[in-house]
């Protein structure tokens, strides 16, 4: 208690520290507690004092006003631990106070004190658990307890403790991994120089030394590095899945003032104060201000090192910690995983609700019967009147009602939920165990990361697939190019004639791996007269964000996109070698001659812009802008009299037909005065608050008047077995949609290549599509036009829509219904040029307008959104990092594994789980409903038909194993078909007859009709179970116990036999 009191006092004292004013120096970690109170009052107000007196600003734009518009209330003082520690965040139970979190990660949920209440709270969020708790409570009331308390209490306790233990184990694992992270070492600046401490001891305001390949422990402002201009590189793959390196740079002022040798005293004397935004989750935005020596310096994203990123290609970097622990951007981003439930489970929940309601109603009716019996029959018999204990019939009926509620509750037993989960887990394991889903190449088996979605695999109606890396291999090969209207590289149909690799021995940097052989181009390159070809290659070698690392005398390229890597690699093979880059220069070796280019600006690639550019000054002092991007954006930015335009467009068409990815390369000589003016505006724009849209327009003004250099064509190979898989899935009745960021032509060609589209498919696109969508009855028009076009009805069409068109459509009200209605008439839908957000939007659209199960499959970080949105997300463990897999419900290593996953595992899971649930409900209701019939012969007195232990053990023991076996091992070996007699429908058969999958699509095995039939059947069974022995027992000496045992035995035997029947019945559906 004293501790709490102390904390409160300390919190209250915060604004006016009563501690003695002493010199506060950066602390040695081991002294930090002792020196907690030694703080300087002058330093306390350092930042505030400086604010009004800010007369000079280092920023040329000179607009502290723009910074003032943002809330910069987060204050960090360098080398001033005591200031931050006073506002150290603490928490007790659910109360939290203080401002600055410490740097320890606490992903665990429970403490010894809170474990029990928290885990119980979580578990009782499930309606089923509350229901069972209610039953237990009822059973503990002696007046109505028709069943002893242990019938429900024991299973409930088991479930609660097993789940609780599982949570506890998970939590302990989290604690361990937290500890592992928290105990990582880093170098912190103290009075004794840099000392190694654990991550958790890092505090806001500390200055850290980071070395090469170290993971950054907290969000920091970069102060200086060992590199020129205090540049450094970070890898952000853990944050956004992008594997390319990004550069960060320190402020000019800190670079100049702090990077003098020896560095430690300089850093120790650094007393800047950073004011920035409150901790938030925006990874790609940061606004802040460094106040130092009376000057304000604006800080933005490029000065920030985020926790979780890795320092690369930089020996040492120094940074000032600004956000620690839970305040870090990456930790602010850790969202809760949404728990997906399957449709079967949702139906089941509603069924359970329905059954409970039904039981309540039946109990009510029986209670009415009891009331009548108590009023009419019981008073006449002295015996019955005496056991009635003088209560009114109404009261007795009330008690009877609850008595029957308890008695009938085994119709909806606890063990259903337990078994259901066990079955799910085993089905997931079976997926992971399947050798056919194991890829020996990458040594990865399939993995069911979510164990609750198996039966949904058997009901997938829409498969929304990414293209790159999913349908295609994402191993890009440079195939052809078109420079100044001339095509190089033979078209694929001729490659087998000239397969001779190019002789590249003259090039010392060649590493091989080029799948391009056109001696003609090499000859042109060596011809100094061919300036266009040389310019084209210079553009390829300059216009990229690739980082070069030298290993064994050859450059190894690290690129953001595989396209870039392929292009820069191709340029290297043919003699235009990109050697290195610094922040503002790039070095090329052009056929052995080393040239330096001054890098003036890099206009980054974004998915909206779909292009990137560099502005460079070559060794002759000429300014040039090289631009590379999607054909459509480049072509519209060409100067009007640009040569080779038509021929290039023709080649683009040609490449698109050959399923090649194309990029256009263009150049613009930039006049000095234009550059002067533009760069000036750029600096201004860079410091504005809403700079991103402004930057886009600014970039746009520069990327104009381009001269087309050429087109590159890259082949993206289809993965193994993709056409077959897609054809099979289509046969199975699954609608396959392709969502890609690529352009329309490529998407359509891939569509043909992977047999998503038939050769005679009609494409609905552009204006025609728009008209169809705007018409009130697209179906009629479609049918009409079909007849007109082909004269036959069964011609098929495919919707092709692009991202911009979709964005335009979204503004019209009611478009989505039209779109979905139209898409249902089509064979497939291709969505091209989609942003990740739009991909998820399309999934959402399908989910909203159909009741079908959607499955999204993808491999890259851009598919994560879609994977999370769909009912089932499948991640391919491919080239593009593990982001998709991390967020997916199932992970596969090859696209064609999908066939077995859906057609075999999905189909089986669906069949097994449907059979399991129906049978389970059947056996428990048949068992419990006997009480209803018995009620008519025992005066509605809630007399149990069975022994107590039999009721307890019926579901968990007597009838448990067969139903589990049914749910785990059941396979349909033979399928009786009307046409070809008995067929083998084992795993191979399921794939050979994909039509069988439609059973799941149409929800034929688990739907309301089936449920009602099952329940009716159980009513019938319970009548047989009761009335057959009743006929024998009637007017005989059979006593109650013998009767009970007879009925119980009959119940066990008949429900057991029914397992067999259940299977046979399913076979013939």
């Amino acid at each position, binding site marked *: 208690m004293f501790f709490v009191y102390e904390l409160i006092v300390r919190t209250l004292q915060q604004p006016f520290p009563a501690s003695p004013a002493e010199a506060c120096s950066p602390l040695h970690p081991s002294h930090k507690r002792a020196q907690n109170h030694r703080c300087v009052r002058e330093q306390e107000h350092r930042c505030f004092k400086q604010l009004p007196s800010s007369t000079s600003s280092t920023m040329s734009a000179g607009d502290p006003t723009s910074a003032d518009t943002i809330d910069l209330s987060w204050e960090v003082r360098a080398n001033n631990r005591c200031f931050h520690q006073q506002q150290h965040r603490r928490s007790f139970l659910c109360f939290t106070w203080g401002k600055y979190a410490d740097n320890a990660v606490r992903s665990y949920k429970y403490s010894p004190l809170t474990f029990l209440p928290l885990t119980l709270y979580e578990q009782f969020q499930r309606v089923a658990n509350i229901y069972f708790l209610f039953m237990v409570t009822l059973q503990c009331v*002696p007046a109505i307890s*028709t069943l002893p308390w242990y019938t429900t209490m024991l299973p409930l306790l088991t479930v609660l403790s097993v789940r609780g233990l599982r949570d506890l184990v998970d939590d302990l694992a989290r604690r361990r991994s937290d500890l592992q992270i928290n105990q990582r070492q880093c170098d912190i600046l103290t009075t004794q120089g840099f000392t190694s401490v654990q991550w958790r001891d890092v505090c806001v305001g500390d200055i850290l030394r980071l070395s090469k390949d170290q993971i950054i422990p907290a969000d920091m402002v970069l102060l200086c590095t060992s590199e020129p201009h205090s540049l450094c590189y970070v890898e952000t793959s853990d944050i956004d899945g992008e594997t390319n390196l990004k550069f960060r740079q320190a402020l000019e002022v800190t670079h100049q003032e702090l990077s003098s040798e020896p560095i430690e005293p300089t850093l120790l004397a650094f007393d800047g104060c950073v004011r920035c935004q409150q901790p938030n989750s925006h990874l790609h935005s940061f606004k802040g201000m460094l106040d130092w020596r009376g000057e304000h310096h604006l800080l933005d994203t490029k000065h920030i090192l985020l926790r979780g990123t890795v320092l690369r290609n930089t020996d040492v970097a120094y940074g000032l910690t600004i956000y620690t622990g839970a305040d870090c951007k990456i930790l602010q981003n850790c969202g809760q995983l949404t728990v997906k439930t399957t449709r079967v489970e949702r139906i089941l929940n509603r069924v359970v609700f329905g059954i409970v309601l039904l039981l309540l109603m039946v109990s009510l009716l029986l209670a009415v019967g009891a009331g009548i019996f108590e009023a009419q*029959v019981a008073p*006449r*018999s*002295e*015996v*019955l009147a*005496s*056991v009635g*204990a003088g209560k009114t019939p109404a009261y007795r009926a009330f008690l009877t009602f609850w008595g029957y509620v308890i008695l009938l509750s085994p119709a909806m037993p606890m063990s259903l939920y337990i078994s259901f989960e066990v079955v799910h887990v085993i089905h997931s394991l*079976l997926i*992971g*165990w*399947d*050798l056919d889903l*194991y890829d*020996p190449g990458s*040594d*990865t*088996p399939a993995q069911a990361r979510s164990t609750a979605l198996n039966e949904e695999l058997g009901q997938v109606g829409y498969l929304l697939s990414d293209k790159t890396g999913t349908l295609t291999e994402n191993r890009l090969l440079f195939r052809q190019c078109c420079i100044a209207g001339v095509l190089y590289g033979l078209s694929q149909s001729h490659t087998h004639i000239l397969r001779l690799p190019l002789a590249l021995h003259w090039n010392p940097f060649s590493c091989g791996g080029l799948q391009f052989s056109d001696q003609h181009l090499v000859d042109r390159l060596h011809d100094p007269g061919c300036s266009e070809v040389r310019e084209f290659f210079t553009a390829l070698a300059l216009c990229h964000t690739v980082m070069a690392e030298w290993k064994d005398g050859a450059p190894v390229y690290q690129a953001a996109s595989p396209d870039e890597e392929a292009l820069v690699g191709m340029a290297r093979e043919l003699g235009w070698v990109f050697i290195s880059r610094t922040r503002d220069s790039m070095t090329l070796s052009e056929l052995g001659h080393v040239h330096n280019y001054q890098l003036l600006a890099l206009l980054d690639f974004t998915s909206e812009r779909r292009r990137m550019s560099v502005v460079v000054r070559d060794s002759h002092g000429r300014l040039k802008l090289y631009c590379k991007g999607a054909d459509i954006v480049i072509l519209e930015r060409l100067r009007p009299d640009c040569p080779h335009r038509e021929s290039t467009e023709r080649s683009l068409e040609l490449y698109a037909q050959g399923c090649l990815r194309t990029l256009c390369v263009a150049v613009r000589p930039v006049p000095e005065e234009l550059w002067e003016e533009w760069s000036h505006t750029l600096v201004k724009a860079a410091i504005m608050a809403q700079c991103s849209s402004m930057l886009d327009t600014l970039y746009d003004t520069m990327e104009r008047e381009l001269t087309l250099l050429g087109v590159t064509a890259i082949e993206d190979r289809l993965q193994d077995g993709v056409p077959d898989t897609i054809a099979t899935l289509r046969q199975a009745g699954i609608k396959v949609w392709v969502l890609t960021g690529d352009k329309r032509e490529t998407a359509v060609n891939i569509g043909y290549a992977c047999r998503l589209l038939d050769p005679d498919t009609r494409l609905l696109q552009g204006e025609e599509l728009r008209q169809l969508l705007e018409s009130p009855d697209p179906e009629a028009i479609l049918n009409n036009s079909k007849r007109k076009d082909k004269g036959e009805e069964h011609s098929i069409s495919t919707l092709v829509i692009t991202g911009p068109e979709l964005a335009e459509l979204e503004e019209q009200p009611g478009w989505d219904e039209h779109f979905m209605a139209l898409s249902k008439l089509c064979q497939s839908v291709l969505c091209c040029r989609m942003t990740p957000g739009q991909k998820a939007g399309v999934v959402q659209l399908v989910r909203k307008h159909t009741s079908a199960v959607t499955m999204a499959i993808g491999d890259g970080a851009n598919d994560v959104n879609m994977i999370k949105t769909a009912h089932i997300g499948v991640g391919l463990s491919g080239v593009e990092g593990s982001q998709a897999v991390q967020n997916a419900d199932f992970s596969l290593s090859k696209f064609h594994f999908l066939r077995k996953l859906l057609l075999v595992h999905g189909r089986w899971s669906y069949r097994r789980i449907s059979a399991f649930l129906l049978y389970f409900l059947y056996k428990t209701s048949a068992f419990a409903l006997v009480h209803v019939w018995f009620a008519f*012969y*025992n*005066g509605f*007195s*809630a*007399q*149990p038909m069975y022994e107590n232990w039999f009721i307890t053990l019926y579901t968990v023991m007597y009838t448990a194993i067969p139903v589990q076996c049914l749910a785990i*091992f059941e*396979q*349909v*070996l*033979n399928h*009786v078909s*009307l*046409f*070809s*007699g*008995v067929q083998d429908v084992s*795993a191979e058969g399921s794939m050979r007859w994909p039509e069988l999958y439609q059973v799941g699509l149409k929800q034929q095995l688990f739907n309301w009709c089936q449920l009602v039939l099952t329940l009716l059947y159980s009513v019938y069974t319970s009548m047989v179970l009761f009335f*057959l022995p*009743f*006929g*024998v*027992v*009637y*007017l*005989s*000496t*059979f*006593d*109650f*116990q*013998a*009767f*009970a045992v007879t009925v119980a035995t009959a119940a066990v035997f008949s429900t057991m036999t029914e397992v067999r029947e259940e*299977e*046979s019945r399913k*076979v*013939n559906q």
Partner: protein
Amino acid sequence: MKTQETTSRPDNTAFTQQRLPAWQPVLSAGIVIPGFLFIGLAFIGIGIGLFITSQSIQVLERDYTGTGSSSACSNCVSSNISCFCQLNFSLSALFPGPVFFYYGLSNYYQNVRKYGVSRDDEQLWGDVSKSPCSTCGPYQYSQNMTIAPCGAIANSMFNDSFTLYQLVNMTKKTVPLDGKGIAWWTDYSIKFRNPTEVYGSLAAAFNGTVKPVNWAKPVYDLDPSNPANNGFLNQDFLVWMRTAALPDFWKLYRRINAGDYVSGLPAGNYTLEIQYNYPVADFGRKSVIFTNVAWMGARNSFLGIAYLVMGFLCVVMSMVMLIVYAKFNTPGEDS
């Protein structure tokens, strides 16, 4: 060895690859139609056997509630004290033995839950010193003393008694009634037990307890003629304590298997002398039943009829299927 450890290749076993041996019956016409026919015929056979046996069992039931025109003992209905009455019947032929003598009660809800739990199994196991459990209420205590046996079941024990005479030459000849071994063996030997006798006296063992309110005699004095048949192990008491399943039931009273009556009750006139104690007229009826048994137990035509109906249904179904099969058979389906 090392490569095996590092690889994550799944095991190639029958279980993990779902290749466990499996069998599935194919329910084709060739199996189903003969199957149904066979089951139907078997059921018909069993049904005929059961039905004929059941018909051969003789039952003689006489109501003696005392209300209604044909009922005997109308003199005793309104009497509150013990009352004697007579029930006469004649047999035209030998009633083959062994003859079982039951009493039957109807509309008597021995299976009402509150009634069924109104007993104390520990007390009935010989522990009379403990206080009876609460389910026994309102028959736990009487005169501040424990009731033994407590509870509503015991309190409501059937207490009519019967003596059977054959009229031979106008003289009454007592038919010996055997009351031994009419209770279940498990009840007699396991579930029920008398308290340990004190100085050889069972009455002393029940010291500190009182008889149930409705009883005339204490439990240790139920059968004055046979000291061994007293206490909780009294056969009639055991029979009563095993509650009936349904509101209308029979309970075994005696067996007739001694003396001249080993082979059954010979033809002639009989008089059943009833000591009428048990009031049922307000809610139900009571009767006496003489019957003999066969291998299937007491007379019950229901089981035979049920088998016959099911058997006929099966045969009819197989016929219908045969016709459908013959008419709509497709060549591919006859495997």
